[in-house]
């Protein structure tokens, strides 16, 4: 089996094809060494964490497949020049009619959700976190999983890079893997920072409301507490201490009902895509709107927060 044959099936970017054309004379000789490359790749991954079996089996480079086990990801990283993400939420075409099969479809979809790989899910929760301004649950397991895999991948890449037997083309492949890793890191970083921004904005509200503490990770909660304290000390020292005593509180409510504690504004509109039938909602004016499966709506967050937290509706 030639080294590049499987790559061509994946319809990689033109650049890689040209590489292939240029080195086609060498491809035969590399073909012989490619299996040993894969063997070495495999041997560097100590535990086999991924139970999925690959349709292409030994043909595929394990390095690019072990973590980001969708084929589209390899393509995405190969065509980096287009600089846009390969993990926009996938919209299945709206299957019409056949109410009887609905249950089956739903089950199928749920299974799909579970089987979605980590990077895709990370992309989804990242969009969700950025699309709403309420405090969302912390996806600790997913992040931990991603971190484990990133670390493992990094080790693998380092080992292979320092290995003198690694050929030119293999180095190129490693580069793709590394680029993909950087992209995943970007996702996680952006996700964590979006959360941090919200947490700092609503730190006092979070500190005062124990019922939402379960949504935050331990580190985030302590960050919220300490940030509130820091901010209040700052205000206290800067001005409040020189005001009359009855004006020194930080949790007053003004005459017009405006509280000093900033809360998430649940009336902000969100753009949602209904993965399942979400029934009807009553809008402000008494109007009713049906949230049918496969439709997209722009509604106030307050009206659909249940569906979003259940995962029935996806924030875009």
């Amino acid at each position, binding site marked *: 089996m030639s080294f590049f044959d499987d790559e061509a099936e994946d319809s990689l970017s033109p650049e890689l094809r040209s590489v292939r054309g240029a080195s086609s004379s060498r491809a035969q000789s590399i073909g012989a060494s490619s299996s040993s490359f894969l063997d070495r790749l495999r041997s560097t991954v100590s535990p086999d964490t991924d139970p999925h079996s690959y349709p292409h089996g030994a043909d595929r480079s394990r390095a690019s497949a072990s973590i980001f086990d969708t084929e589209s990801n390899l393509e995405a990283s190969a065509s*980096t020049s287009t600089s846009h993400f390969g993990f926009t939420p996938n919209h299945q075409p709206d299957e019409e009619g056949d109410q009887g099969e609905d249950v089956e479809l739903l089950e199928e979809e749920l299974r799909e959700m579970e089987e979605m790989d980590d990077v895709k899910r990370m992309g989804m929760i990242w969009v969700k976190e950025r699309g709403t301004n309420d405090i969302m649950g912390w996806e600790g397991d997913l992040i931990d999983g991603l*971190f484990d895999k990133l670390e493992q991948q990094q080790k693998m890449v380092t080992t292979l890079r320092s290995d003198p037997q690694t050929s030119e083309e293999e180095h190129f492949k490693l580069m793709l893997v590394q680029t993909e890793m950087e992209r995943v890191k970007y996702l996680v*970083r952006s996700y964590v920072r979006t959360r941090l921004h919200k947490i700092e904005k609503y730190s006092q509200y979070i500190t005062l409301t124990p019922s939402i503490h379960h949504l935050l990770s331990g580190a985030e909660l302590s960050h919220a507490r300490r940030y509130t304290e*820091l901010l209040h000390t700052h205000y206290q020292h800067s001005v409040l201490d020189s*005001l009359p005593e009855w004006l020194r509180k930080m949790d007053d409510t003004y005459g017009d009902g405006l509280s000093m504690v900033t809360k998430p504004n649940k009336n902000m509109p969100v753009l949602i895509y209904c993965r399942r039938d979400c029934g009807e909602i009553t809008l402000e004016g008494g109007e009713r709107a049906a949230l049918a499966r496969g439709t997209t709506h722009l509604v106030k967050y307050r009206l659909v927060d249940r569906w979003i937290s259940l995962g029935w509706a996806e924030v875009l």
Partner: protein
Amino acid sequence: MYGDLALQLVTASHRSTLSTTPQLPLPKYALPLILSICLETRQLGTSISTAAETHGQVSLSQDRGLVCNLTVQHLAARRNKRCLLAYLSTRVGGVKERWWDAGGGLAYLLSPSTSVAVNPDLDAPDLRSALSPQELDFLRGYNNLMLDYKSDFLDVLDLTAGIEKPPGELMVDVRVIKDAGEVILEGGERVEFRKGERFRLARSQVERLIVQGFLEEV
């Protein structure tokens, strides 16, 4: 008029937020104005309590002029407080923004040469002198807080790296615009950065130096 000074404070603060791009240097902390607002508020406070004491409960329910007077003073005092806090929190936002922009480099942020090097012709105050001592304390506290928070992630990723755009390329061409001396990169490589030289390096390794203005992307 009560509240005039406070109004002045918030309008100035609002104006400074209007043009965040390109980022203007943070205006100097308006200490005199703040002190006079605090003074005004304290005077209002004493005036309210003395009025209430001298007239007592009875006249408060009868003398409508007095009630009106007290209400106005009370509202003015509360408004002053609100304006002061609004000013402070806007500034806190600005300080935090700068911290993140500098990639969490506190020493770099506060070094006096920074703003001079970036815009030598402007006589803008550097960040350290624009901040009040309390704000400096806050910045230091925030820095510690973030260091604690990001240390959990540090073995895998650096939280303070930029998130403006997703990484497109692994490698980056850079030109050295300021001597940085010898820098040890990830993986033990030593690179001597001298002004004018060009390098091709992994983006994640030199990201910080780009943010801090030692290197420039070509």
